[in-house]
């Protein structure tokens, strides 16, 4: 009866009070802030003459609007520049720490924060950004919020929430060679759909998760939101603790010893009951590629673009037809025959060192195909960039014909200068293939770093397992 899920342990521990209808006030341990979703929240505080309750629990970083080249020129677009400056000014006014532009640690918030040891097991973590789910990889409860809630957290260090449902996705066996965490999560979304986990917090479990690195777990949790989940999480194990050791903001000395003892407790009890359970065989997963305009429109590399005429449900058929028209694809086209114009390697999904290593391994001693108009690598943070340069990965990319850029969100959502033009087709390691996401009229195919790197070399998708 006392058996608890990982989620329930963290939720119960953060409970401050509850209303009769189940609305719960929970305490927030860490709050991450970026420039796009925070200005109106700070403005709200000023208008209501409120202060930030716990400035030391909030950390800010500009990432969405930052340029990825010619940094010395600053941000040229005046509207983008104003947004970043507004963040800097707000942090100064309210006493919040910021990893500003020019700080070597600056980067995509979801890459930078774990790297700094800001995210610890058992914490509640929020950010005005849906990919906050990433941080659940460390055994934390991390979820995205809107700007009104950003303001609420700044003012009160709490949120009012309804308790979500729980779901466990167990991935038995291990991934085959050449198949990565990204393929695994793309496959899951293809199976359960973009609303498959709505209202639920997913715990990812099973041998294929236990054998993943922390980077890989972050990739999986990152995209939990693309399955509609409130959050994704992974139980604490040795990987988690090894990852945290000696991170700048992780506890030290006696605090570290005490913390590790407590962290071991952030796992689901063996008899814990989940509202839903799903199991998959990880060994059966192939490299995945999206063909449509929703992350559930997914095919294995050996597959082909599906035919809407074979689908009975009229709403689904219609969205497939719209997606294929937008993507300029014909049913029956093998995934390996889709020609690519641009290549994007980066984002909070796949901008970590391990992702760059996987891509570099494919690219090494090869050349980007002539038909590719632009191939770019955007490291997830300044420290990822530095590490990659120490390992010589930048030279591998540059010699192959890639552009080696400065860290930021870049062409994941194209708020800076890195955009797709209408009709251009991009192989991308990011997380969303929505219409216009990477530029109005641009066409996005989501895939793993290795698959995207191979597409750069061949000019079309190819099965990395055969390389």
């Amino acid at each position, binding site marked *: 009866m006392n058996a608890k899920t990982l989620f329930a342990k963290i939720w119960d521990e953060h409970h401050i009070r509850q209303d009769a*209808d*189940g*609305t719960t*006030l929970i*305490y927030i*341990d860490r709050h991450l802030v970026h420039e*796009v*979703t925070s200005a*109106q929240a700070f*403005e709200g505080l000023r208008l*209501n003459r409120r202060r930030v309750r*716990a400035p*030391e629990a909030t950390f800010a970083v500009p990432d969405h*609007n930052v340029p990825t080249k010619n940094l010395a020129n600053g941000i040229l677009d005046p*509207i983008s520049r*104003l*947004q970043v400056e*507004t963040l800097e000014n707000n*942090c100064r006014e309210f006493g919040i*720490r910021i990893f500003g532009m020019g700080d070597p640690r600056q980067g995509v918030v979801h890459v930078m924060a774990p790297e700094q040891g800001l995210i*610890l097991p058992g*914490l509640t973590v929020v950010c005005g*950004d*849906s990919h906050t789910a990433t941080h659940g990889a460390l055994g934390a409860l991390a979820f995205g*919020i*809107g700007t*009104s*809630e950003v303001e*609420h957290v700044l*003012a*009160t*260090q*709490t949120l*009012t929430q*309804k308790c979500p449902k729980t779901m466990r996705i167990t991935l038995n066996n291990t991934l085959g060679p050449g198949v990565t965490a990204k393929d695994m999560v793309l496959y899951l979304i293809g199976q359960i759909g*973009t*609303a498959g986990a*709505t209202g639920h917090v997913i715990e990812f479990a099973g041998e294929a998760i236990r054998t993943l690195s922390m980077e890989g777990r972050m990739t999986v949790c990152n995209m939990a939101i693309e399955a*509609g989940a409130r959050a994704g999480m992974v139980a604490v194990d040795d990987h988690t603790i090894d990852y945290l050791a000696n991170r*700048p*903001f992780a*506890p030290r000395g006696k*605090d*570290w010893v*005490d*913390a590790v003892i*407590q962290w071991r407790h952030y796992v689901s009890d063996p008899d814990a009951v989940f509202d839903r359970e799903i199991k998959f065989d990880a060994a059966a997963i192939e490299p995945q590629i999206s063909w449509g305009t929703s992350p559930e429109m997914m095919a294995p590399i050996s597959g082909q673009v599906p035919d809407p005429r074979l689908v009975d449900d009229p*709403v*689904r058929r*219609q*969205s497939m037809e*719209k997606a294929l028209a937008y993507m300029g694809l014909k049913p029956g086209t093998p995934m390996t025959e889709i020609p690519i114009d641009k290549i994007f390697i980066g984002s909070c999904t796949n901008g970590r060192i391990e992702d760059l290593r996987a891509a570099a391994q494919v690219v090494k001693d090869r050349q980007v195909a002539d038909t590719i108009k632009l191939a770019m690598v955007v490291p997830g943070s300044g420290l990822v960039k530095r590490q990659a340069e120490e390992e010589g990965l930048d030279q591998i990319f540059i010699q192959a014909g890639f552009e080696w850029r400065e860290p930021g969100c870049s062409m994941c*959502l194209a*708020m800076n200068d890195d955009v797709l033009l209408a009709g251009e087709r991009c192989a991308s390691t990011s997380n*969303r293939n*929505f*219409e*216009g*996401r990477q530029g*109005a009229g641009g066409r996005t195919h989501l895939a793993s770093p290795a698959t995207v790197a191979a597409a750069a070399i061949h000019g079309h998708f190819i099965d990395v397992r055969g390389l």
Partner: protein
Amino acid sequence: MEPFKVINAIVAPLDRANVDTDAIIPKQFLKSIQRAGFGPNLFDEWRYLDRGEPGQPSSGRPINPDFVLNQPRFQGARILLTRDNFGCGSSREHAPWALLDYGFRVIIAPSFADIFFNNCFKNGILPVVLDGKTVAELFQETLATPGYRLTVDLEAMRITTPDGRSLEFQVDPFRKHCLLHGLDDIGLTLEHEEAISQYEMKRRREKPWVFIPEAGDRLGFNV
């Protein structure tokens, strides 16, 4: 926030599933540091034939006559009827801001994405979940009847159709209360200041490693 009581208004049918927040308000408009003014760029890529830029006046832009909100019969709509999983993707609250600024106060769908659903309530928009069959019927009636209007009564949690049918819906009591009275929930939470402080003290005692006040300074951090 404007209190929500009863809305009687024209219904606009947006016949798509999985409408994401990138489509509701494209990213170039997220650069604004204001809460207002997003209405002219709601569904920008579907509504106009050119690419919209922030700060550009919307009058004079070529409109897409096929897009539902551009059709004369749906002008002045305050109720949006749509399909499953509306508001998925990015957490941007600019999406409800844009819907509200355009004039929508009610969105009816078989299901919503979580963060969007939550964000609606913070901005005086009522998201109503009705089952897929009822939504399909409302689509048919809206399309078949020019000037089709619905009455949405939050207090009674009831929608009334022109032919007098009643459709019941559910809203959490707390959210309903806030919406009905236009309450700022930060103010409500601050009434529990005592409980928050006590919790904080207990947490500091039990898990001191959660709190990292000096860590930044140790690293030569500049606030």
